[in-house]
């Protein structure tokens, strides 16, 4: 596996774990019937999911730029 590929795989792993954690927090917030449940959903679950998606999108952008930079389009 080349270095960009392993970097991409690591980014995917981080993004996936963050999103899964965010989704688990979302399930807890939906089961928990409490005024703080929305706060948990929005500020913890939502934040984890958004950071995970941002990591994934950033990895796509960086993978695209490194492919363009090495002069060997796939």
């Amino acid at each position, binding site marked *: 596996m080349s270095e960009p590929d392993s970097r*991409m795989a690591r980014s*995917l792993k981080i993004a996936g774990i963050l*999103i*899964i954690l965010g989704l688990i927090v*979302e399930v807890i917030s939906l089961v928990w*019937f409490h005024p703080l449940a929305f*706060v948990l959903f929005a500020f913890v679950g939502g934040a984890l999911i*958004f950071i995970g998606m941002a990591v994934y999108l950033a990895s796509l952008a960086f993978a695209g730029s490194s492919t363009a930079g090495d002069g060997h389009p796939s």
Partner: protein
Amino acid sequence: MFGPPAMLYILIGLTIALIAAVLLKPSVTSGAGGKILAFIALFLLPSLCVLAGVSSHVERSHETRFCISCHSMVNYGRSLYIDDANYIPAAHFQNHRVPPDAACAACHADYSVYGGLKDKWQGMRRVYMQYVSKPPNPITIPGGFSNRQCLRCHLGARSFEENPTHQAMMDSLRSGEFSCITSGCHDSIHNADQVDHLKMWRPQ
């Protein structure tokens, strides 16, 4: 067959399963199909889960049991069971003039264009007051209780329109110059500080 929450749980489960598949076998993302799968698993489905989660939370924030789950709202919830028809919220709740499962929202929701957003903002402020600062005592509604909340249902209703007292002051009621609940006509409302001393209705 399935309600919206069950559908949301299925969607979340499906998303987690797809992400796990991508994580366990990252090599699938080398092909075009795998890239699309990764995009669906790591972007499209999580976005959908967040949107559905927001919708689900907003929906259940309309429920009566949600409103009274705050400690400072407990007596307001109990006031819905006062056994006296002069108490406006109790009479509306007990006779299903408002949906009992969404009784608070029926009378307190802001029905203007951006009312939903304003309500959620107020709700977040109240959560802050409850857990970080201190809830006001007595609890008040910013700007007071507007006649529009009453007139939304009562305006056009025969018993309301034909009442000679209402007819005589209709313009003042519409403009809000004369308050339905604080001008001495329908002033028995929640009276949350008195509920311990009032007779309660016990549904069979």
